[in-house]
Every structure is written in structure tokens, then in C-alpha cells.
């Protein structure tokens, strides 16, 4: 088990300036925001389940940029049909992270079904080109290093512990400002 905020710190340490980083609603966006705010981050502070399809669209529209999609198990389960869609569209530049703590932690830690369903196996069956399942920080580091030079779509399942951190601020940037600065970070405009 990896503490979620340590996993997020580790993932963000591998982000290059041109990369796009998308984070899902709840604690994940708050932790990405407080760890490393940057214009190329899109905090999807509502619309649970929408992040992966938005990420797929960006990966297709801007194929020269790496797109990091960072969501939780609850979010991935809500839009599970997007996994085979991503696999079938074969975006080589998409890196999909599922931080799997087997719970809806942002709403009070209610259990999800991912303790009984291995989402890494689901992604493999769907046809993701690269799938890793990690449960310690060294494994995550290895999976992140292994992205380089390999065509995606990648799925990295991170088994995370429930370790709520008190006092993590909400995303304080207004939605339209998140939109505008992110839009400026998306390259390859027609």
C-alpha cells in the first residue's frame, strides 16, 4: 500500500513541462493542486466518471503531448466502459493512473467493489498496451520509468492506503481560469 498523497507526489515528479495532467473530482484534485499546481493541470472538480473520456479526447486531439489521467477506483468504476474504448482507440500518448484505495474516500471512506475486482486485469483484458499493478513506492517509480519509450495506452494501477490528510485546501482557482490556462497548454492546434 502507498499513501495516496505520496503516490501523487511521485507521479507529479515524473511530469515533463509539455505534459497534460488531468485529475478527478474530490481529494485527488485537491492533492494534485496543493502538491504541484501548473497551467497544464486540469482539475475536474465535478462530473465524476468523465475524466477518462475527456483525457482520451485530449490524447487524440493533441497526439504529440503525453496526457496523464489521474483518477480513483470509484471514478474508474463509474465509467468502466471507457476502458475498452481507450484500448480500442489506441492513443499511444495516454497514461492512465487508477489510485485504488478500494473506497470512496472523499465522501467518507465507503467501500467500492475494487477489493473484489482487479482493475489492472480489466485493463489488460480490454487491450491496454502496457499495464502495471504496483503496491509500493519502488514499484511505482519503476512503472513510471518504464513509460518512457513505450507506446501506450498505459494503465498503472496503484494500490493505495486510506490515509486522509487533514486540511488539504480545495482548488481555489475559478473554473474558467482553470479552463483558459489549460487551453493555452494544449499544443498542436489546427
Amino acid at each position, binding site marked *: 500500500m502507498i499513501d495516496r498523497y505520496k503516490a501523487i507526489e511521485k507521479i507529479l515528479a515524473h511530469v515533463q513541462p509539455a505534459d497534460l495532467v488531468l485529475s478527478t473530482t474530490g481529494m485527488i484534485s485537491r492533492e494534485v493542486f496543493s502538491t504541484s499546481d501548473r497551467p497544464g493541470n486540469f482539475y*475536474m*472538480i*465535478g*462530473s*465524476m*466518471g*468523465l*475524466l*477518462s*473520456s*475527456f483525457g*482520451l*479526447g*485530449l490524447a*487524440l*486531439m*493533441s497526439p504529440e503531448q503525453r496526457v496523464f489521467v489521474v483518477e480513483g477506483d470509484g471514478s474508474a468504476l463509474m*465509467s468502466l*466502459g*471507457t476502458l*475498452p*474504448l481507450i484500448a480500442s*482507440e489506441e492513443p499511444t500518448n495516454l497514461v492512465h493512473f487508477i489510485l485504488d484505495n478500494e473506497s470512496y474516500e472523499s465522501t467518507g471512506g465507503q467501500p467500492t467493489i475494487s477489493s473484489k475486482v482487479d482493475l489492472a486485469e480489466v485493463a489488460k483484458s480490454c487491450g491496454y498496451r502496457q499495464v502495471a499493478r504496483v503496491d509500493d513506492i519502488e514499484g511505482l517509480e519503476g512503472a513510471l520509468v518504464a513509460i518512457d519509450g513505450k507506446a501506450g495506452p498505459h494503465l498503472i494501477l496503484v494500490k493505495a492506503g486510506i490515509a486522509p490528510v487533514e486540511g488539504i485546501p480545495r482548488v481555489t482557482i475559478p*473554473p*474558467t481560469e*482553470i*479552463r483558459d490556462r*489549460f*487551453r493555452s497548454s*494544449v499544443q*498542436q*492546434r*489546427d
Partner: protein
Amino acid sequence: MDAKTFWDVLKSRDLTFFAGVPDSTFQQAYRYMVEDPEIRYVPAVREDVALGLASAAYFAGKLGGVMMQNSGIGNIVNPLTSFSLMYKVPVLLVIGWRGYGGPPNDAPEHWIMGVKSPEIFDLLDIPYEVPEADQLADALDRLLAEIHKRSVPGALLIRPGVVD
């Protein structure tokens, strides 16, 4: 209106990135779309997934589109309110209007949404047009002007028989 005319109108307005779920209201137009190399279409598994995909086009400097049936409007209410309208991300919704006019038109599963479809967009303050076959270009241009002026989604409600 035949499928080629329909797509010529859309493509001439730089509408070439679509995602969606099919509807029998525009079967020929759907077939034309997936075979036209100038149109990039992603066969989404649900309407909300299509909305997420198509919305990405805005960030690359284009307007994306969603092809769908009105029975899927319920599937996009959450992303419309807490994504599209909140972040002000425009997108074009091309919607087959099943159950138009209410019962006894169409099958029972379309009766309620057939009546409620425009009311939902009124409620959400999302602009829409209901084009006639010979006035598609005018209706689309009015809608696109509103979409860009307010930076919001907008819907084309396509009644049966308007587009092949």
C-alpha cells in the same frame, strides 16, 4: 435532406470531430460520417463519454460534436451542469428526436422524453434549434453564434425525416 448535404453543411463550418452513440433518426448520415475520411468519429459507449471526448476539441481550438438519441439526454445532465456549463466549454449536440409530438408517435419508451426533450434544455438554459430540412444551414449558424457568444453547449434537435 440527404446525408452528403447534411455533412457538407457541418464540415463547411469546421465541424469534423465527433463522438457519439447511433440513432435511427439519421442512419444514412451516421454511415456517411464513419466512412468520410475528413471526419474523425469516436464510437463512444455512452452519451456522457461522448460529451467528454467531444469537449476536448475546444481545448485544441476546435468545436467538437456529439451524435446521440434524445433518450440519452438523461445521461449527460451531470456533465452538462458540472462540466460544460461550469467551465464554459462549448460543444455541439446533434440529437435524434425520437417520440417527437408524444404518444402515439414512436414506441412507448420514447413517449416521455419525446415531450420533455426541449424542456430539459430550457431548464438548463442551453440553446437549441429544431431545423427544417431546407433551413439547416441557417439554424446551425444561429446556434453556433449562440454557442460561441455564451461559450456553452448547444443542441440541434433533429426530427424524424429531416435528415436521411
